[in-house]
């Protein structure tokens, strides 16, 4: 019986392996194209392993061309890092107040804050665009950053997490004479490391992959993050797929590597929203 079960499991595993490779074919094709000469990219049948390698030239075209890719990289890292850090701070501060401090109107304000989550981001693009223009922040990183300084969603998730932390820690700290800021910084935040890590990774990925925000709020090519940079490559290299695939690969690889290293955290973060519903 046991043996029989293993055979079916093996067969399923083999079937799924084939399916998963088939599923990943677009990305495998991307990598193979990034290594080729342009004339070989669209040859059929596909040369999965290139006969002639053009990796160095493609790499140069992407990373050292007219609009070097490292600039987009730098911009993406800057935007994502600042917004992730500030979201962790501001959202955890609000979550601390919503979960561990007692004051009049707290739960009402919490419900009010949550209700803003139903507004689709795209529905307020127009007024936010005008606001950012009035503030003189159009076509600056500061304008984009301003809009991503906090997140209601992560405030909610962090509050849920903090509710699970025993109040005894806080009472004990109060007896030792600790103030609220100290309690927040040296007791609550360290206990929240798992949720902070999860939220931080997810927010970073969101910003890294954001296209709509930069498209609307940035004009100057020097300020472009990777997503808009890819747009430039698509327009400039419309007939050079090898270079375009090298650019795409350059955008995808770091995130995939980070994901494989931190997969447990990422998957937990993605699933959090799902389980809670």
């Amino acid at each position: 019986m046991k043996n029989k079960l293993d055979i079916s499991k093996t067969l399923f595993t083999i079937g799924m392996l084939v399916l998963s490779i088939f599923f990943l074919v677009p990305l495998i094709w991307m990598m193979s194209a990034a290594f080729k000469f342009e004339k070989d990219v669209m040859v059929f049948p596909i040369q999965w392993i290139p006969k002639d390698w053009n990796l160095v030239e493609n790499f140069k075209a992407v990373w050292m061309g007219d609009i070097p890719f490292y600039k987009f990289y730098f911009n993406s890292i800057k935007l994502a890092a600042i917004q992730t850090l500030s979201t962790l701070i501001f959202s955890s501060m609000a979550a601390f107040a919503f979960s561990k401090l007692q004051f009049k109107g707290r739960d009402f304000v919490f419900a009010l804050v949550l209700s803003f989550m139903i507004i689709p981001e795209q529905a307020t693009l127009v007024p936010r665009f005008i606001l950012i223009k009035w503030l003189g922040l159009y076509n600056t990183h500061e304008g984009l950053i301003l809009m991503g300084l906090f997140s209601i969603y992560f405030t909610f998730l962090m509050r849920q997490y903090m509710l699970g932390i025993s109040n005894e820690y806080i009472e004990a700290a109060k007896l030792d004479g600790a103030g609220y800021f100290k309690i927040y910084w040296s007791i609550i935040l360290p206990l929240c490391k798992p949720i902070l890590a999860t939220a931080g990774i997810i927010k970073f990925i969101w910003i890294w992959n954001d296209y709509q925000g930069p498209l609307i709020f940035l004009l100057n090519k020097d300020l472009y993050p990777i997503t808009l940079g890819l747009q430039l490559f698509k327009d400039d290299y419309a007939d050079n797929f090898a270079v375009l695939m090298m650019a795409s690969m350059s955008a995808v690889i770091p995130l995939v590597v980070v994901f494989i290293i931190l997969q447990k955290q990422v998957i937990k973060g993605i699933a959090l929203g799902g389980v809670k519903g």
Partner: protein
Amino acid sequence: MENKVIKASVPVSYVHKKAFWTNGRKEGLIGWLFLLPEIIGILLLYLFPLVFSLVLSFSEWNLVGGLQAIHFAGFDNFIKLFEDEKVILALKNNFIFTIFTVPIGMFLAIILAVIIHTKVYMSSYFKIAFFIPYISSIIAIGAVWSALFHPSLGPINQFLTGVGIENPPMWLASPKTSLISIIIITIWAGIGYQIIIYLSSLSSIPEELYEAASIDGASQLQQFFKITLPLLGPTNVFLFITLLIGSFKVFDLIAFLTQGGPNNSSTVIVFRIYEEGFQQFNMGYASAISWLLFIIVGVITLISWKLQKRFVHS
């Protein structure tokens, strides 16, 4: 004697002061201080834009003309909305997009998740493999598919011609197939998310249920329909609503690959907002379209809350 009076008065005044700054008040003040950054942010970036966009939706304003060019337009924008063929087309496309991406995505995801959960070795490899497209930038994904879908040179059509199909579809380049091409890419890129959600709720179903069922002689198919599917009910509702709302917000792939075309064949609501607001600078009309989106998403959300409550109670 004097000493005693002084000593007595100190605690009295101390108590008096303390009556105002009670621990409760202090905690309240600190609470608001902790909330301050986020509340300012919400006022500035959520509440003000919401009110402002309502005002704008009743006015006609081309941003190029400056503030003095703004004037009241009554319901003109909303009347225009229902006569605008592009908006109607966008709604229709959004509807088609939803009908295809949501059920097909969920159906494929639930099958794959059940197989990954119970039927294979190396399940963590499969989790990663199916999740990679989701984690990758949708723009990079779009660039790859734009090459794969290339009408004459792309590998997909070369393959189709190779197996004897004479006029393979033009995919993104034809009004007939542009939307379906976007749908294919969306399902492919999003399925990893749905698998992860299903897997996390599959892992919370107790193993004993299945053991008891197989002792009673239930087949695996019966187990799936009688145990797995009912217990996944809340997850199905959650995913359905999340994907439904998400499908009305679709923008990135369309802006990047087709610009709503060719011939508006792949335009959607958010792309219409983008066109009117950020290409034509008709801020009033763009705001009216935005409210259409807000109302659609709002209604779905409210219905879903009711639905979820019912699911929790039953």
